[in-house]
């Protein structure tokens, strides 16, 4: 009985657990990986984690998508976090595109995307 209760509670919080896992994974990749592409991936994973957090904050059980056009009922999930998430996805996209272009130039320069093969120290 207790086990089942715990299981259900975990299921209810599954979004938040995923958030923690994603952010942790992202930070791990940023801090410990030496491949520049993996660092960019870490930034993106962390961004996805934060976006998921924002989205799950706005979730209301049984709510429909916040579209008023011929909506079936008036119980909706919160639209504000969704708007915030969209903005943050856009920004994340720009950041990742910029970082990838840096990686591209660095690869052209050094023929390596390992952060250990760098000339710059500091």
């Amino acid at each position: 009985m207790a086990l089942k209760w715990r299981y259900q509670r975990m299921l209810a919080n599954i979004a938040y657990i995923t958030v923690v896992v994603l952010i942790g994974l992202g930070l791990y990749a940023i801090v410990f990986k030496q491949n520049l592409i993996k660092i960019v991936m870490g930034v993106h994973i962390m961004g996805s984690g934060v976006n998921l957090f924002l989205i799950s904050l706005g979730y209301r059980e049984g709510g429909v998508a916040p579209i008023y056009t011929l909506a079936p009922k008036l119980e909706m999930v919160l639209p504000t976090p969704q708007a915030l998430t969209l903005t943050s996805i856009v920004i994340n996209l720009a950041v990742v595109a910029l970082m990838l272009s840096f990686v591209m130039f660095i690869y052209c320069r050094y023929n390596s995307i390992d952060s250990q093969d760098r000339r710059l120290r500091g």
Partner: protein
Amino acid sequence: MSGLSKIVRVTAAVLMVPVSTFGLYVIMHGHLTPGGGFQGGAVLATISALFIIAYADEIKKALDVNLLSLVETLALITFISLAFLGLSTTFFSNFLLKAGELFNNPAVGINGGDLNTGGIIPLMNMAVGLEVFSALSLIMVLMYYGSKMEVPEDVS
């Protein structure tokens, strides 16, 4: 490079119709649904991605880098100018709301989804959609050229 086989190319060309329709739909309904300029523009930009994959170097004429960056800049200027035009009340003020036939009263509550209810928001969505489409296409085109790039000599 000459791109992929004929089957892929024709499929890509055919797919352009539904994809662009969907993208334009998302842009036009931006003030009624959670879509809008960015999402629609991103959908439209997938056409560019598809064409880059299918046609490779033949896209040079269709997706001209200079043209794309000009369109992007002009769309951004349009967006900001629209915001400036509302300045008699406030910046970003919706001055076209209830202005006439094309710009009807705003929709409140559950509604039938008429398109003429957004004031300046659809215009801004169009500007943003154009901007996002050209910017994303520009990024992809540049990265496509960049992937075949030699070591750049003194670019600055």
